[in-house]
């Protein structure tokens, strides 16, 4: 998808220029004159970048920047663009949160390149390989553009070696196709320059030539070309060689690439003379630099606080904070120490110049010298800084990789430990399952035999037994029956812990109704009076919650055995985040001091001869409710009934 850029500038020239430059670079551009129009555009949808003038007919750009920053959407990068009259504007803009501040007159390539950087999304991949074509013939350029575009490449063109090198630095193409014969620097020189730039060194380059001579090919390859194609060979050959070249360079670069030597540079010029500043800035902009200007040492320091630069040109003699003092202040700051600083001096300031160098300046230059020398010195300083940065970058990268390797090792060990624990757990679960299975199978068979043969004796030998003998056999059979129920309950209890849950919306009213019907059937002679309030649906496992309802209701029926009638009431209460269900009876109740024992496995508060039971039912209830993320509790008074409550959350459970 195309990135949207909103340009807000009252100058028609600037709008037209930026619209053209940014559209050519693949952006979708909306250009408006006033803040009112800008607000309309922003209200329609988000932009990926805003380029904002500071002085606008209906307001102040920095105020508008503040307004953008309060918008609820994701932060949009904002580039302020303004006439560099007051360094205060630059400082104010950057402090307000501008992502960049570009002075007018601006360099088009510089601005487009920054726009690319500011709109780059993390981890983004180029949609198609991007090829740079450098050729002075418009015919050849367009022919190549057409062929390559049809083959699925993105193409940019340049008509001179110098322009090509700048494009290469700013746009980082996947490959370069360069004509050998160019005005200005020739193709071989372009390749050599690329090979000298660490960031572009690995860029595959194809040299195109009209010449037939073998000597030319040798020159081209000597210069570092990866492929050499004669124009007569035709477009298919160019495409084939380009494909091969890109495949060969497909291996990932071993180290993440630092900024290129040719990437946009910002220079801070500090001088109290407005005239000299303007001349200097003009000269530097002609070289493609972005220039920030400060009229005093104090202004320079303020500006550096908010915007780093690539080099400082500092006048030695200034009112207020002197050049030497400014230089010392800059070099004292650890973040600025590596920033090249060139002292500008008059010829007769030898002493002061030495003092400046002692204060930490990296170079000095006399103001009277021609700008050719200044530009060369500046390039030298920028190159030095670049190399230092590359070295630091490589050191950091190596450190980072080492750290990653250590972290990866740690993560692997952790993962291995985890997976062995999981395997162990899995094994234990299988063992438990096998155990439950054999309990269910193997313990039942002998019980059946005990009960079965007791029954056989009772049938076959009844006349040979006296009353005591018959009574003993009856007791053996009763005990076998109890043991059978215990085994069944225990298995049901373990199954609730083992099996997965099937989650859905559960009809509690229906579950309660079914349980009541069953209880009435099992106790046809008992006077049972049930009252059931409207019960809401809950999210959970229907068959498990059915067990909860059955257990609580059958307990209520069991423990109200002596009551005629037995009153049993089921109610629900809506509470924040949960629903509480209650089952109350008017039965024997229980002693509240034993409440904590109610829900434990095999815990019973009544003697077996009073009420039969295995002591598993309430433990099962608790286990099921807790698997639903809920709670259970109970209230009771001896002889005055009991109430059992369980709460189920309203949030949907994660299986």
């Amino acid at each position, binding site marked *: 998808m195309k990135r949207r850029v909103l340009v807000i500038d009252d100058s028609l020239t600037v709008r037209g220029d930026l619209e053209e430059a940014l559209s050519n670079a693949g952006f979708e551009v909306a250009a408006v004159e006033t803040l009112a129009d800008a607000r309309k555009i922003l209200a329609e949808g988000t932009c990926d970048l805003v380029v904002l003038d500071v002085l606008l007919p209906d307001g102040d750009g920095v105020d508008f920047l503040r307004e953008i920053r309060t918008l609820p959407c994701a932060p949009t990068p904002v580039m302020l663009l303004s006439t560099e009259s007051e360094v205060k504007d630059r400082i104010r803009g950057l402090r307000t949160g501008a992502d960049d501040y570009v002075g007018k007159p601006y360099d088009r390539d510089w601005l487009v390149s920054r726009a690319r950087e500011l709109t780059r999304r993390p981890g983004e991949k180029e949609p198609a390989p991007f090829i740079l074509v450098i050729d002075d013939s418009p015919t050849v350029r367009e022919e190549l553009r057409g062929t390559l575009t049809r083959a699925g490449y993105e193409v940019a063109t340049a008509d001179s070696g110098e322009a090509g090198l700048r494009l290469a630095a700013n746009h980082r193409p996947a490959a370069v196709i360069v004509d050998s014969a160019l005005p200005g620097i020739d193709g071989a020189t372009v390749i050599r320059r690329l090979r000298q730039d660490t960031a572009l060194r690995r860029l595959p380059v194809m040299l195109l030539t009209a010449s037939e001579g073998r000597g030319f090919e040798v020159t081209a390859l000597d210069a570092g070309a990866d492929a050499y194609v004669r124009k007569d060979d035709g477009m298919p050959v160019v495409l084939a060689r380009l494909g091969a070249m890109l495949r060969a360079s497909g291996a990932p670069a071993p180290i993440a690439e630092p900024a290129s030597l040719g990437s946009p540079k910002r220079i801070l010029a500090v001088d109290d003379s407005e005239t000299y500043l303007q001349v200097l800035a003009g000269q530097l902009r002609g070289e493609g630099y972005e220039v920030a200007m400060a009229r005093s040492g104090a202004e320079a320091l303020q500006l550096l606080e908010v915007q780093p630069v690539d080099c400082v040109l500092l006048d030695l003699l200034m009112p207020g904070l002197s050049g030497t003092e400014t230089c010392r202040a800059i070099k004292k700051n650890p973040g600025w120490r590596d920033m090249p600083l060139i002292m500008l001096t008059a010829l007769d300031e030898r002493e002061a110049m030495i003092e400046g160098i002692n204060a930490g300046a990296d170079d000095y230059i006399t103001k009277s010298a021609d700008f050719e020398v200044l530009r060369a010195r500046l390039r030298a300083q920028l190159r030095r800084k670049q190399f230092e940065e590359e070295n630091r970058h490589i050191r950091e990268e190596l450190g980072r990789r080492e750290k990653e390797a250590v972290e990866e090792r740690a993560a692997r060990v952790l993962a291995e430990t985890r997976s062995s624990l999981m395997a162990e757990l899995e094994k234990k679960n299988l063992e438990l399952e096998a155990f439950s299975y054999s309990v*269910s199978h193997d313990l039942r*068979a002998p*019980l059946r035999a005990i*009960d079965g043969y007791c029954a056989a004796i009772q049938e076959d030998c009844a006349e040979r037994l006296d009353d005591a003998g018959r009574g003993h056999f009856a007791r053996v059979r009763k005990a076998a*029956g109890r043991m059978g129920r215990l085994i069944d309950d225990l298995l049901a209890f373990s199954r609730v812990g083992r099996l997965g849950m099937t989650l859905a919306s559960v009809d509690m009213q229906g579950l309660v109704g079914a349980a009541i019907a069953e209880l009435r059937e099992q106790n046809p002679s008992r006077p049972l009076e049930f009252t059931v309030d409207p019960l809401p649906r809950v999210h959970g496992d229907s068959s498990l919650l059915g067990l909860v309802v059955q257990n609580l209701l059958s307990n209520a029926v069991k423990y109200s055995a002596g009551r005629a009638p037995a009153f049993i009431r089921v109610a629900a209460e809506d509470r924040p985040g949960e629903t509480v269900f209650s089952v109350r009876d008017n039965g024997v109740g229980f002693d509240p001091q034993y409440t904590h024992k109610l829900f434990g496995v095999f815990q019973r508060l009544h003697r077996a001869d009073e009420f039969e039971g295995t002591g598993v039912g309430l433990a099962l209830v608790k286990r099921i409710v807790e698997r639903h993320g809920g709670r259970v509790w109970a209230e009771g008074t001896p002889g005055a009934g009991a109430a059992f409550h369980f709460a189920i959350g309203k949030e949907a459970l994660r299986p």
Partner: protein
Amino acid sequence: MTQESVDILLVEDNPDDADLTIRTLRKHHLSNALRHVRDGEEALRFLLGPEAASPLPRLVILDLKLPKVDGFEVLRALRADPRTKTVPVVVMTSSREDKDLEKCYELGTNSYVVKPIEFGDFAEAVARLGLYWILTNSVPR
């Protein structure tokens, strides 16, 4: 024809369960044509071997946990063979596990009965299924 006609084939390794089952069937006069085998291999030899029973029993009562060849394998083999694919099989087991139940139905059992522990219930279950499959049910002959 070396074998007498068999109505019920009982495949049960537990002598007590077998004895109590036969006792119950005898009470209901269903044990006259009963054959008891003690493992799956014997069951398969009886039904599918060179001297296989003919005609087929009217009912196979099959335990799941058996020595040598277990009940699942017996069921699978019976359903895979054209001669026995329709023979009525009732699985009678101690296992209440859902997965056993599902597996037996997938393999094509006609019925699945969990052996009750209490003899009264057990005897009732055996009598009911014997009466149903031998007296009520019709099978293709």
